[in-house]
């Protein structure tokens, strides 16, 4: 057995060198992962060009930009919540209820409003406040009362959807003032304002997560809550804060959607099943459902990918009755592909 000791023993610097090599390749893999969806997006653009000649046109791309802006802003909110190791199904409800309440206070009785006729800008403040309230209630129930996030936000979804339908008796609010629809409907040149806003939010939140101490604390809390607590991070405050921020972003997404379609239906959010797209975009983009892993580059590419899929299906000859089944199927395939490309287990 002594032949073993004759072999060359590896000294510590050698081990360090080996590990350094491994980590460099690990860093390359992580960069690859962030850009992993780029080829898929390129392929989708090529496919789209063949499917319909109308696809590769400025007007179509601005349309896509406008369509995915509302989803994208909501995905930022959900990603933040996923990063701290939580989940929020009720973003769907907030996405519908917040613009509903604001619009209801703004528009005249003839357009099914309350008759309060408040200033549209004040309405936007109300909209953000509704988001903040919902997030605060969720956060307090989950963090302080230690209830399970899944069941709390599922219950909240149902409450919010019910309120949304109940307030206007199932009617659709229209005649929205231009200040209220500006964010969702206006364009600067050919570029939709909503798209610019979404890009701005992705960039700011991305930088915040990477370079701000609270952003880093979000990763610490999501990665290991107890370790973060032992390091003196105010874990409860950060978790509640993130639930609030997530809901405010969902409310803003709802405002964009209301502006885009110039109306608020009693089923905005719920009708298009937005929460599935929100989770799908985040997960396809590499945001872990277990917390602590993911970034805004990934989340943004997940959103773009979903937007392209939706647009190509709209332009293709798929029958309206089948389009949802096809969309769902394509998203599931995308999840599998993202899992294969991403490597790490979800």
């Amino acid at each position, binding site marked *: 057995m002594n032949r073993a000791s004759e072999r060359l023993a590896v000294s510590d610097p050698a081990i360090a060198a080996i590990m*350094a090599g491994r980590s460099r390749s690990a860093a390359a893999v992580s960069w690859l992962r962030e850009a992993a969806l780029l080829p898929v997006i390129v392929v989708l653009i090529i496919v789209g060009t063949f499917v319909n000649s109308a696809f590769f046109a400025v007007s179509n791309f601005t349309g896509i930009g406008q369509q995915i802006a509302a989803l994208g802003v909501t995905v930022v909110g959900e990603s933040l919540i996923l990063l701290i190791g939580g989940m929020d199904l009720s973003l769907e409800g907030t996405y519908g209820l917040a613009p509903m309440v604001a619009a209801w206070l703004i528009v005249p009785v003839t357009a099914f409003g309350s008759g309060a006729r408040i200033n549209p800008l004040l309405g936007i403040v109300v909209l953000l406040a509704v988001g903040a309230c919902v997030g605060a209630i969720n956060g307090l129930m989950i963090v302080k009362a230690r209830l399970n996030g899944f069941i709390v936000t599922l219950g909240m979804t149902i409450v919010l959807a019910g309120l949304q339908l109940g307030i206007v008796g199932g009617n659709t609010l229209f005649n929205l003032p231009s200040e209220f629809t500006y964010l969702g409907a206006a364009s600067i040149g050919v570029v939709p304002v909503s798209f610019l806003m979404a890009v701005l939010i992705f960039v700011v939140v991305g930088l915040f997560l990477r370079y701000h101490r609270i952003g880093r604390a979000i990763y610490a809390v999501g990665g290991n809550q107890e370790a973060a607590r032992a390091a003196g991070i*105010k874990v409860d405050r950060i978790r509640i804060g993130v639930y609030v921020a997530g809901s405010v972003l969902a409310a803003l997404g709802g405002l964009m959607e209301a502006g885009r379609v110039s109306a608020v239906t009693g089923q905005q959010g719920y009708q298009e099943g937005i929460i599935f797209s929100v989770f799908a975009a985040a997960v396809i983009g590499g945001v872990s459902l277990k917390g602590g892993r993911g970034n805004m580059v990934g989340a943004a590419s997940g959103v773009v990918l979903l937007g392209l899929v939706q647009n190509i299906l709209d332009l293709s000859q798929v029958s309206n009755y089948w389009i949802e089944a096809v969309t769902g199927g394509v998203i599931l395939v995308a999840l599998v592909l993202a899992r294969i490309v991403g490597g790490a287990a979800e």
Partner: protein
Amino acid sequence: MSDASTPAASPVVEAAGVYKRFGSTQALRGIDLALRPGRCLGLVGRNGAGKSTLVSILSGIYPADAGELRMHGRLATVHQHSMVVPSLTVAENIFLGRQPQRSGPAGWRSLVDWRAMREQAAQVMADWGYPIDVRLPCSSLTVEQRQIVEIARALAAGARCLLLDEPTAALERDAIRRLFDRVKQLVANGVAVMYISHHLEEVFEICQDVAVIRDGEIVLATSTTEVTKEQLVSAMVGGGEPAEVTRVTLRSGPVDGPVDTPCLEVDHVYAASARGSLNDVSLTVRPGERVGVTGLLSAGPATLARVVAGAEGFAAGQVRLDGTPLAPGRPDLAMRAGVGYIPEDRQAEGFVSLLGVAENSTMTVTDWLAGKAGWLRPSTVGRAAEPLSRRLSVVSAGPRQPVGELSGGNQQKVTVARAIIRKPRLIVAITPTRGVDVASKSLLLTELAEVTAESGAGLLLATDELSDLAICDRVIVLVRGEVFTEFTSPPFDREAVIAATEGISRGAVQEDGRDPA
């Protein structure tokens, strides 16, 4: 096993020339090993030497890249971390996956025969001299009982070879003794055992043979009667380094002159806790003083440390740092008041495994490092972490390598860096060397002692590893949540401290200054 004394029978499990590589790391380089019936083989080695990989290959978790495994009997592994299913009963755990079956009415087959399962499980436990209600869920058992259930499961499945992977890491002294009695009994009955441990004295106590693994190779294999502890240590460490690595040497002395105002005052504290309650505990730590707190796990040393660090609340009493009371259960406030906390379980509380070495090391000082609006530069973080990483010799690929990828010893160094980087007035450490290899152990203890000596910080060291107490100026022994006795003059007599933790003899203060017999 050429050196082993006359093997009585052919091996139950044999490994020949086993190689295993993970990425660019060659974890095992030609391991030859034989486990024979009626013999206990101790496997020792530093963290990262390849022990865990070898265990995984022997238990079939990974295939070997090259080499041969010959199994002449069933092998079962009892892992370091409990592998029982907590929500299932003792009986269900013992028969997990192979429940006794019966057929039912109407041609139903393969139904679980609950009664037979309970009866057989009770019989298994009784054979072990361990009568326990097999209908209890495993979540209600102590760590020791869970381990017994695991071993019972392995044996009931017909295992003729047991791998025990650091089974004593979470056990108290009494439980360890009982475990050893049972292992000896198993070996006497012809079971082959491989025993993996960081504690060399345990290996000498229950093993007939010992093998030292270093850098993926077996560098020494012999009988425990033919080798000394020092020889094992030098084989583990490798050429060049002195054998006496567990000795802690201080490069600088304690702070000059007596400093009388305590930095920590614990005043009649009562706390209820699953880790052991505290009943009217009072103590003080002066600046620069290193105070050890020891006792059985259930006696509350860890609870006391957690209470001081704010990780746990308390019902009555007061904890003051430099005269200012600390709020119960507020780790954030305790940290800002000047407490540096090294938690008991580093996996659970010590670091965020996905984040890098530098970021984890500086997690307690982001408020110092950030600019006005709270923005942090990664380069600032890296620079801030660098001196401590170097001082504690953290072996990593760089400041951005996730801490989860490091070895246990290096993870612990990061946890220690995180606690001391904020220049605390008081360092609270709980079992800081648990599961850490011998070399890292002495480095960690030396650095803790030196940091306190240099900065004048107090150290409250809660531990059940007596070797940790070597750096302490004073040792307080808790029994059932009360201060039982205090040893005031190092070196502390091992036997006397053990006797005190068992609540047998206080004989310490009186024996002051006397050379322990």
